[in-house]
């Protein structure tokens, strides 16, 4: 028996949407097997099937010679599978020892009553955390640990549960270089003990250092598996983005815009929390500027900083030729900035408002005084605006009196775009504008963006969807770890070189 885990021909449908199609994956004992793919390629879904969170639609899983058609979370744990998620799932209020033994606390009988055997538990836990090099007492509360230390506790917990397979989902995303080296040391130890490790990460240089083999997924399909010694960064990126995109770009040549007049100039911008560092760029009139990079690389964080939703430590912003200091979204609106945010539900629409109230909200604020608190409203006028944008950007609804929650994702997004158009925005930020939106509405949203740019409105688009950026933008800035890691004109941009700039 060569493999400790063998996932065969796994498919997974979510109400018709194919998240995984016929994916196979094998893990040998003592190897670090990298799972690679873009956001949404299906890595997490595959791992959730292995950990018993999801049931596969078809396919089978063999663990240590035992075949399953599906796993329950308990069967998964009992088979020796342990998953360390990116957002560590520890209970902050409990001690390290309690976290390690949560759900299976050792008991002892005192006066005939079973109680937790703290002494024994803390001793075992202490040995476990020493094994992974954590210099702490097992009685310490988890809330006092750093992220790197918490991760070590998670690994200790996996060892304590005699895990044969440990899945690590982007384990280094919030670690420093030194902490990463420490983690790699632990991983090498685990390999020596014969534990198989499935390692998910986007950081290519890291993968080349720690991995033994790599499997690549794209759009829910299996692309291939290679030995790490046979690959380079470039071959990995090609595998990730696929060979399908051979054209240089999807935009017709004659529709590429390069403007003269500068609408927005950002110089040396650094956020107080340093999520964005030393960013400089210019947005010209008539062009659509795209922002690419992995999630958390600083794209959205930059937009929020420009919009006044996150404090800036250094740098200057020039808007329409005037230096501005934007302290709040209210201020940004007054200056003519509109922001279609990343998450419609959380930071976008108001679920308690009708369509027309959602559309008029920011316009009312823009024309108000005393920090947004002063001014009267005129419902008739508001409804007129709403009707106007319902017609001009084709919001499909029975009536503007409908609650926005009743609309499809695409139409909700159009309402939010309508909100900023109604407010007369001269600079528009679109953050993941087509996330969860059907193809028809996507096309319409792209058209609106293009028309806005042609009308002289500044348009910036953040997107994880590379084909989207390639077909919409005139220029693409790529972020990596809070910094700009390249600016590509549309003529030179390809999925490969964007991915390369985003990951290395």
């Amino acid at each position, binding site marked *: 028996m060569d493999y400790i885990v063998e996932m065969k021909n796994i498919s997974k449908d979510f109400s018709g949407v194919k998240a995984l199609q016929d994916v196979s994956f094998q893990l040998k004992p003592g190897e670090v097997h990298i799972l690679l793919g873009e956001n949404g390629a299906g890595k997490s879904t595959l791992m959730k099937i292995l950990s018993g969170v999801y049931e596969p639609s078809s396919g089978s899983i063999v663990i240590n010679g035992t075949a399953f058609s599906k796993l329950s979370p308990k069967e998964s744990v009992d088979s020796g599978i342990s998953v360390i998620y990116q957002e560590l799932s520890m209970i902050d209020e409990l001690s390290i020892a309690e976290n390690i033994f949560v759900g299976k606390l050792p008991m002892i009988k005192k006066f005939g009553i079973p109680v937790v055997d703290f002494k024994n538990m803390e001793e075992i836990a202490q040995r476990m955390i020493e094994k992974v090099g954590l210099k702490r007492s097992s009685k310490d509360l988890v809330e006092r640990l750093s992220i790197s230390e918490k991760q070590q506790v998670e690994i200790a917990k996996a060892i304590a549960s005699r895990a044969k397979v440990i899945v690590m989902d982007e384990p280094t995303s919030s670690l420093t270089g030194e902490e990463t080296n420490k983690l790699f040391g632990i991983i090498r130890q685990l390999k020596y003990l014969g534990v198989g490790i499935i390692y998910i990460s986007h950081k290519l240089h890291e993968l080349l250092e720690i991995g033994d083999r790599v499997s690549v997924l794209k759009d829910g399909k299996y692309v291939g598996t290679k030995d790490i010694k046979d690959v380079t960064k470039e071959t990995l990126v090609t595998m990730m983005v696929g060979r399908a995109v051979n054209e240089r770009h999807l935009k017709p040549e004659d529709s590429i815009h390069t403007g003269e007049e500068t609408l927005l100039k950002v110089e040396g911008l650094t956020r107080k929390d340093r999520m964005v560092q030393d960013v400089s760029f210019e947005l010209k009139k008539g062009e659509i500027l795209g922002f690419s990079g992995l999630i958390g690389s600083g794209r959205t964080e930059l937009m929020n900083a420009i919009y006044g939703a996150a404090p800036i430590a250094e740098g200057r912003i020039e808007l329409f030729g005037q230096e501005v200091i934007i302290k709040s979204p*209210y201020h940004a609106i007054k200056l003519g900035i509109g922001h279609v945010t990343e998450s419609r539900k959380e930071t976008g629409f*108001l679920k308690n408002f009708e369509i027309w109230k959602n559309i008029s909200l920011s316009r009312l604020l823009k024309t108000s005084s005393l*920090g947004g608190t002063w001014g009267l409203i005129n419902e008739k006028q508001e409804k007129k605006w709403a009707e106007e944008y319902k017609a001009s950007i084709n919001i499909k609804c029975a009536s503007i009196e409908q609650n926005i929650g009743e609309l499809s994702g695409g139409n909700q997004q159009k309402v939010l775009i309508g909100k900023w158009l109604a407010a007369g925005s001269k600079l528009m930020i679109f953050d993941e504008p087509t996330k969860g939106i059907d193809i028809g509405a996507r096309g319409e949203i792209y058209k609106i963006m293009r028309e806005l740019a042609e009308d002289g409105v500044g348009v910036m688009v953040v997107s994880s969807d590379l084909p989207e950026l390639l077909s919409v933008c005139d220029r693409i800035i790529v972020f990596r770890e809070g910094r700009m890691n390249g600016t590509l004109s549309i003529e030179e941009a390809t999925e490969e070189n964007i991915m390369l700039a985003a990951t290395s």
Partner: protein
Amino acid sequence: MMQKFNVIWSKYGTFGILILLTLVMGILSPQYFLTTGNLTQVLLQSSVNILLGLGEFFTILIAGIDLSVGSIMALTGMIAAKLMVAGMHWVLAIIIGGIFVGGLLGGINGFLVNKTGLHPFIITLGTLSIFRGLTLIISDAKPVFGLPQAFKSSIAGWLGPVPIPVIIALIVALAFIFITNKTKLGRNIYALGGNSQAAWFSGINIKRHTMIVFVISGVAAGIAGIVMTARLGAAEPLSGSGYETQAIAAAIIGGTSFFGGKGKIIGVVMGGLIIGVISNGLNILSVPTYYQQIVMGALIILAVFLDRLFGVKR
């Protein structure tokens, strides 16, 4: 069908309950309950509750709460009374002692909520006690008598057949209807209650609006304190104890959503009247006060439960 019922319920449910209760009481006690004199009495007894509930409404609308309204009511009444006794003209005394101090105390709540980031429940639970303590200190725990007759007859008197406290509550209700329906401030407060993050990204200054909401609640409680003092003819250091329950009950029986973002001023007025009808009716039916408390408590739970059951899906 169900959808339709939901819509009708959310629009007219509270009003229906009020009518139903009035009819039931009218049938049970036609000779006492359904008289002009008694119904006027219901309005008069409800006016302080409604005033408190009207302020409370805004704090619940932003998914918060104000537990300190009863204490603000006592402190403002006490300060206004002290000012009058010290010789200040009563009109000036109620503007400074009632409205201004009420707004100031509400502002303290708003300031603390904004600065600490704690839930308003915690902050106002604290100030509930602090403001009560201040009232006891400045009054030495004794009632203040000897208020000018002009004050008592102007605020607690009658305008023809209508008690002036009722008129005051009506004016405040109309002013608040104006704020909620016709001003940007009102719209923003609804937005803030619906989803504070989305409101912030739409350009609403969360802290400033939170501050204003608590000032409004404080002013309404201050006005209630003046009315209460005038009706009693004296400022009682322990007046208004436990009134926060009544204020919250008026708001939520009136259909204000505890999750924020939904509710109407007219609903609060209805809610206050429902409480008034029940306590007046139970009095007439000679139900002991202790039992009335049980009815009130059950009613609060029932109102929110029905709202959950039939409320239009959010």
